[in-house]
């Protein structure tokens, strides 16, 4: 599944500082100067510094017509939307002020009625309802990511970071400056901007997505932005974020899925790589999901290459240099002790020679958004199987499955698997299910393992495996499988029910009760209470 993220680099909202009346010099009036400076700081996401600049002036807001604008923008960055709207309405006007006001209103409206849950360094703001099941996992992953980044980069910004969970991409578009079309075209699903992270709920996608890695990825953006005062170019930003997104759960560097590796190698061979310049101002502005995937793969490999050639300390060094105001090219040259051109040449060679992961030749599966008529449709789940005869067998299996003729279904799925192997998750999943039901557990496990080698993030396969382990009473393995599934599709009640069963067998009654409750919430037998299970809930 393609996943896209973007640093919002649209300057429209930063324009107030640029649109400042040039007739007045900053030093002519200390208030005006501070206001303008604060807006510039906010444009660089330096919120705490802007706050320091503006808070002393807040009492004199009536004396300078631009102060409400700056204060309003500050409040927006502090997620104090109601106040932001009031201040920006007071500023009124057209142009940038209008845009900020619209954004503040949208933020206020979208997050109205949201609940909050906190951990030591993070606050999750989420809509009332089923999203509650995301909260404990999200907080846990982000705390782990913070600790890992602090270790890798040597520094993370102090204070709490807010994560807003949005119900759909429409809300994401309203709270960012991207259009819904751009979001769907590039598969953008989360954004780090305005001193917060905005993450779309996995329920907006038919198969969910790797939402925990995505949140961790956005946090890397947050750290890099703060570290370099928003001076890191987009390619490096994305490369670092990509490389570190799985750091919360391991050593990091899980940068290429089989298909993106194949995509990258193909593009490198054909010299059809996306240039770093084309990635500017945002990955979300690329023309397609394929282009965005390719771009992400390129920059992730660039960071991987940097780490491999210059060692793990190179990256903090590069960031430090950028923070000092040096160009990225120079910063890399300093860190690698070779000219940037040589770095690029080496990177391009590395793109081609880097070994492909297993199953790299597979086709990319597009993200499928709800309500999009170009996605989905009858039998579309078999479209990924190129072999027509295998598709036919799979369809026959499906016909039997719909009629609960499991043995016949297993045989037909089996014929399809025999032709194309178990590398297609939908096919492997169905085959495994039919095999399990008819008592052929070994066949099921073999198919699932094979499929998961090529699709390690496929939630449905993990669920199947979880079922299998539950059946065998291998509780720890069952729990691991369900947790892996939860990383992509946390709204499947079976995942939480399975987790509850495994946790109970492992004598963790607290976790078992929580998962049971989550399962009940997801099947609609329990209403999500106002509070979050993790941290102290407050509105």
């Amino acid at each position: 599944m393609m996943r896209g993220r973007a640093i919002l680099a649209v300057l429209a909202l930063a324009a107030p500082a640029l649109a400042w009346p040039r007739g007045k010099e900053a030093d002519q009036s200390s208030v005006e100067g501070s206001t303008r400076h604060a807006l510039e700081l906010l444009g660089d996401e330096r919120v705490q510094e802007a706050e320091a600049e503006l808070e002393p002036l807040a009492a004199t807001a009536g004396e300078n017509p631009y102060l409400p604008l700056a204060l309003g923008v500050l409040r927006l960055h502090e997620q104090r939307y109601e106040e932001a709207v009031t201040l920006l309405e007071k500023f009124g006007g057209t142009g940038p002020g209008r845009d900020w006001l619209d954004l503040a209103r949208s933020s206020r409206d979208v997050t109205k009625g949201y609940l909050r849950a906190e951990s030591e360094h993070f606050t999750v703001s989420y809509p009332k309802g089923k999203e509650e099941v995301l909260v404990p996992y999200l907080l846990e992953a982000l705390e782990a990511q913070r600790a890992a980044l602090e270790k890798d980069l040597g520094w993370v910004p102090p204070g709490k970071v807010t994560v807003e969970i949005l119900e759909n991409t429409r809300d994401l578009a309203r709270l960012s400056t991207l259009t819904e079309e751009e979001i769907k075209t590039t598969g953008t699903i989360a954004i780090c901007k305005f001193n917060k992270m905005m993450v779309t709920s996995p329920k907006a996608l038919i198969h969910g997505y790797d939402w925990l890695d995505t949140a961790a990825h956005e946090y890397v953006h947050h750290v890099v932005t703060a570290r370099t005062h928003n001076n890191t170019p987009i390619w490096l930003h994305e490369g670092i974020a990509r490389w570190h997104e799985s750091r919360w759960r391991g050593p990091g560097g899980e940068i290429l899925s089989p298909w993106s590796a194949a995509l990258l190698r193909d593009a490198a061979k054909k010299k059809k790589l996306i240039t770093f310049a084309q990635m500017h101002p945002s990955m979300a502005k690329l023309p397609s999901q394929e282009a965005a995937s390719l771009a992400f793969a390129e920059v992730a490999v660039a960071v991987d290459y940097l780490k491999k050639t210059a060692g793990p300390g190179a990256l903090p060094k590069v960031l430090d240099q950028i923070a000092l105001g040096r160009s990225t090219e120079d910063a890399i040259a300093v860190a690698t002790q070779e000219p940037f051109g040589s770095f690029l040449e080496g990177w391009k060679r590395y793109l081609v020679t880097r070994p492909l992961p297993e199953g790299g030749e597979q086709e990319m599966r597009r993200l499928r958004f709800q309500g999009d008529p170009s996605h989905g449709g009858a039998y579309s789940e078999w479209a990924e199987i190129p072999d027509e005869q295998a598709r036919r067998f799979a369809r026959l299996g499906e016909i039997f499955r719909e009629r609960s003729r499991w043995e016949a279904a297993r045989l037909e799925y089996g014929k399809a698997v025999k032709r194309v192997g178990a590398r297609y998750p939908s096919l492997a999943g169905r085959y495994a299910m039919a095999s399990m039901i008819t008592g052929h557990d070994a066949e099921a496990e073999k198919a699932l393992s094979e499929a998961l080698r090529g699709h390690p993030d496929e939630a449905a396969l993990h669920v199947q495996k979880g079922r299998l382990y539950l059946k065998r009473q291998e509780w720890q393995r069952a729990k691991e499988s369900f947790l892996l599934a939860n990383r992509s599709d946390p709204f499947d009640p079976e995942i939480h029910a399975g987790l509850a069963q495994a946790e109970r067998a492992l004598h963790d009654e607290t976790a078992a009760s929580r998962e049971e409750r989550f399962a009940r919430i997801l099947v609609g037998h329990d209403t999500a209470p106002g509070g979050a299970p993790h941290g102290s809930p407050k509105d």
Partner: protein
Amino acid sequence: MASPYTDIARVLDAARHRQGWIVVWTALFWGATGASVVLLLGAAGLAYGPTWVTTWLRPASLALTALVLLATVAWAARGLWKSAWGPKEAARTVAGNDPMLRSALLSSVELVGEREVLEKTGSLSVALVDEHISRTANRSRTIDLARAIPARPARKGGLALALAASAQLLALLLLPNLGRGYARLLAPARAPAGSLRQEPITSDIELTYLYPAYMARPEKKVPGSGGDVTAPRGTEVRISTRSDRPVKEAQLVVESFAAPVGAAANLGVPSQKEAPKEGTGEARAPSRRVYALKVANERDLTGSFVVDDAGSYRFQYLDHGRVKVSGPPIPVAVEPDAFPEVRITAPATEVEIDAGSSLRVEWSASDDFGLSELGLVLKPPAAEETRRPLRTFDSTRRDSGSFELDLGPLHLGEGERLLYWLEVKDNDAVSGPKRAASSTHAVKIYSEAEHHRLSLELARQQWEELVRLLADRLEQLRRGVPVDPERLARGEDLDNRARQLHERMRETALGMKKDRSAPKEIPQALLNVASAIRAEEQRLSAARQTLSRWLRMAHTDESLPRHLDELDEEMNRELEKDVLYLEQLFDKRRAEDLVRMAKDLASRRRDLASLLERYKQAPTEQAKKNLLAEISRLKARMQDMLRQMSELARGVSDEHMNAEAMAEMAKSQDLAGAMKRIEDLLAKGDVDQAMKELDAMGNTLQQMLSSLERTAGMPDERNAALMKQMMAFKKDLEEVQKEQEKVAGETEQVKAQYRKAVADRLRRAEEATKKLEALAKKAQDELRQSHPGTSPRSEDDYTQAKDRLDDLRRALAMRDLDAALDVSKRALPPLQRLAGELESDAFMAERYANFQRRSPPADVREAARHAKDAIPPARKVREELEAMFPDPKTVLPRSEQQKLDKLAKDEQGLEQKAGKLQQQLGELMQAAPIFPPQASENLGEGRGHMQSAAEELGRKNPQRGHGQQREALDSLARLQKGLEEMAKHGQGGGGGGFPFPFAEAGTPQGEGSEGDPSREKVEIPQADPTKGEQFRRDLLEAMKQGTPEPYRGEVKRYYQELVK
């Protein structure tokens, strides 16, 4: 002395009382019991018995009860008299069965009565008497009266009475009419109130009826009647009569009965069925009207009244205003004015027509007095009734006619039903016009989608069975499992199911073909599938039967189970292919129907928008009503469509698809919800918002339509790919045919060279040919002489040998040595078999005297000898003929031989191409079962002949090589013909489920083809000019006459083998 007797007297007195009461109670209980039983039976009889019983049952029951009671009283009296009447009776009763006591008591009683006499007379010792009395008194003191006079009879009686009472109670509970029976039994039927019969006080009543004007009936006079009046309501009745006495003053009193209101005025009745019936309406109070009569000549009375309700009238004579004499009531009956009637005589109760067309409605109406108005009532779906006047009548009693019902303005959608009926009123001006309605008819708008759906449903049922059969086969006949009788039985069962399915599919398909509205491709597809299944099933059944036989014979060959496994696999592959093929067709059809439906919806939405616009311009209540009705209809239609869409979208649902996202998707398509919102907005009067909502709905609909069109188009894309493959196959086939023609033509040239080279040798062989003829004749003669000894077993071989020897002689006579060589080779095997069989028969006949034979053993032996003797000359002929044809290598020049080598290579190349074609065909047949099952066989045969041709040409034999080439061409031609015929029945008929590029333009469609190979004439390969005309003609003639004689034996053998 009185003292001892006092004790006796007291005992006896007590005994009398006790006995008296016991008798009385016993009688009372038993009497009551008896009476109760009799009454119960009587009451039951009266309640449930037939009428003839009830007439005598009551008196009989009562009499019997009385009898029972009387008998009881008599019995009680007798009992009292005999047992308690006086001291003696009491003494007897007390003593019971004790004779001593009885004697003592009786004697004491008697002696006390006679003591004074005894004392006076001294005839008996008084002291002795006293002593006796004293002893008896002592004895009597010990008497226990309860034991001496038991109360058992009374208790028994009481028990009987209690039982009888219980029975009564139970009967009353269980028999609901018993109470009525009792009532009839105990309460005497009251005699009808004895009204004093009043004598008539008038005579010669003359009535004149003046009917209401609307009836247009002439005045009617009834002289000399009894006065009974029968007339329609509103009729004026004039009366003249003569009094039986002088009268000064007289009057008519008209009394009407209580009459139901509804009977009087039947206005506003919606239909005849709903009209209130006589007596069921609310009762109207009886009325009494008085009319003065004119009196002339003291006796002639005249007057009149108007008939209003049924009742009576009577004459009354008055004196100074007071009624002096009152005559008897004379009945007044109201002649009913019946309801009018109207019927729709055509069309039938429910018809189906195209939207926008009109319907011709024929009607007839009648009334007993006259019709006034005819109207049409329409009831569109989800809308209110509307009435349209059709015509008015001029008091016509009977009429009929027709009118055109134009459905266009009603904007009915496909599948919607319009209800309509006619209403008619009569011209009743008195009670008001009565209204009646015809039965309700319906017109349904033809919906192709619905018809398709029904057809699809029929086909889908067969498809489901196909799926079940495949699943059962997969599950029950696992490959590689050892064959045992149980598995064979399962297999046979599944084969039977396949056979039955084939039959049902055929029937369904043929039925659908008759339905003009059924989609054409579906029945054709069903026939294709049925045919394919049948072919596989026949092979399977035969193999299974053979294996079953072998198993019974304990045969251990393993090749047959393997073969059966392969056949089972082939059947499974066929079923798999068929399941997908049909499913794809169904999906395509359904998707196309959905597109139609969505288009219809979109068009309705536009209509709704314009209605809304009009309403906005002129908001009237009626416009709003129409609007809401339209919305309601649209809503129903949308729900129907969404239901079908969800059916179509099966297979998409993946249990691990994000359920939340699916729910959101469903919500976004909630068109029905949008309709509800529009309805609500309209109810609130927010037209602008409703229009906005409608616009939004238009967008959603458009998206849906696009999506559906895409879905519907998907099978076409697949078909296009298939079509491309088929076109390639067709082209390749034609190329192979063309090349084969070319190679065969070149071979023929070489063959001509060869024939030319051997012609001289053959001419020189004239002498030898005569010798051969003689040899053939000898063999023929010998064979003929063997005929009397042939048995049924050897008859076939005899016939074959005879026919072939005949052919041999004929070919030799025509000097067609080529043909003669061929026939001579074929004549030898049956000859040899015949000789062997006759030899065996002769041996058996000689060895076993009782061996049943038609012929004597000697004859059989003789026949065997003749058959044996026929072989050498026949063999000699073959050898001689073979010697006559030289080796082509020795005859043909080197250049021709090289040419043959090249032709052999070409032929080999062609065989390889044909092999590829066969592979292509196999793949296409996997994609869709649209090829005749024999297509692959034909191609295989063609390949075989090509291979043989290549071999023969490699051996430098142009004769045989060419023959094989012609055979190959024949196979290809049969394949091509079969494909074309298939196409004619499929696509040519306007239906084929898949494109089929083999159809010839404009070829007519035939009937009954199911993909069998062509039965049409196939062009015979070019005739060999070296063969005699006569010989070829004979062959053709033989072909026309069914199985050629020489092959009858083979055919018979074949069928015998099959039967075995």
